[in-house]
């Protein structure tokens, strides 16, 4: 089960309101390479993993991604909270405001809602972990695109932290992939096609 801790994984902050930027950063809330997608991918894949290291790693990284979902939600919330509608009207955030007001909604930077088709969950562990390696690199790339979109030092700190986590997760998944290959070599009966 999950238990909430009443603090963030990282002190996510903004130095000024910026609804335009909120409309872009939201892509890591509910977009294809966003944190919700990452979390649900790993927390769906963990059940059928053949080795304990893989179950634990997917469980812990899937949990950490939920904390990142909250960090992105915090940034979007702080960027738009208290901004008057007539200011929002002039920004890229206006289409979001027309649907949802200032509430957070998992969507990408074009307003497309989150869908689970953003990710896959295969019984074949090599297929899943290889997808996860790609997912971490795609998320890292998106953080770099977003870093190009702002000069706010507080937001840069937060996005740089999240970018760094993608690199660490990539390293851990790489180790899991090697352990899976070792496991397959030792148990060819469980993988007839290997």
């Amino acid at each position, binding site marked *: 089960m999950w238990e909430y801790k*009443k603090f963030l994984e990282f002190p996510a902050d903004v130095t000024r309101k910026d609804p335009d930027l909120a409309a872009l950063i939201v892509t890591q809330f509910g977009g294809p390479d966003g944190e919700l997608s990452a979390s649900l991918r790993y927390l769906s894949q963990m059940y059928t993993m053949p080795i304990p*290291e893989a179950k634990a*790693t997917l469980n812990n990284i899937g949990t950490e991604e939920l904390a990142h979902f*909250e960090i992105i939600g915090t940034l979007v919330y702080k960027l738009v909270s208290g901004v008057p509608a007539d200011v929002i009207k002039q920004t890229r955030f206006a289409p979001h405001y027309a649907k949802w007001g200032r509430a957070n909604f998992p969507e990408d930077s074009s307003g497309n809602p989150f869908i689970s088709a953003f990710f896959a969950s295969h019984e074949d562990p090599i297929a899943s972990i290889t997808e996860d390696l790609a997912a971490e690199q795609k998320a890292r790339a998106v953080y770099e695109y977003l870093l190009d979109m702002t000069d706010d030092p507080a937001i840069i700190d937060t996005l740089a932290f999240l970018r760094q986590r993608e690199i660490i997760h990539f390293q851990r998944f790489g180790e899991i992939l090697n352990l899976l290959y070792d496991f397959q070599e030792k148990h060819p009966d469980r993988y007839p096609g290997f």
Partner: protein
Amino acid sequence: MTGRRRPDRINLPLLKDIMAHNFVNVEAVLFLNTHPDCQEMLKLHNQNAEKYHRLVEEYQRNYGPLYSNYPDAELPWRWINDPWPWEIDYRR
């Protein structure tokens, strides 16, 4: 009842210290999952976890629950108190 409601209390330096120790453990756990025989990381994990729990206990006793299952002797129920994590200005 509203008159009994105490003012919001937060200790930002202590909260940030807790967040930092929490993060060290997030990282240590991930590393140990793929290096389950690493004595050095286990030591760091255990020392850090011990400190984390001490800091959390100090915070919860004095400033309110960080976990909703904290056995809080005081009323009114403090778990609902603002600020929530997304409402805090961490730059102070």
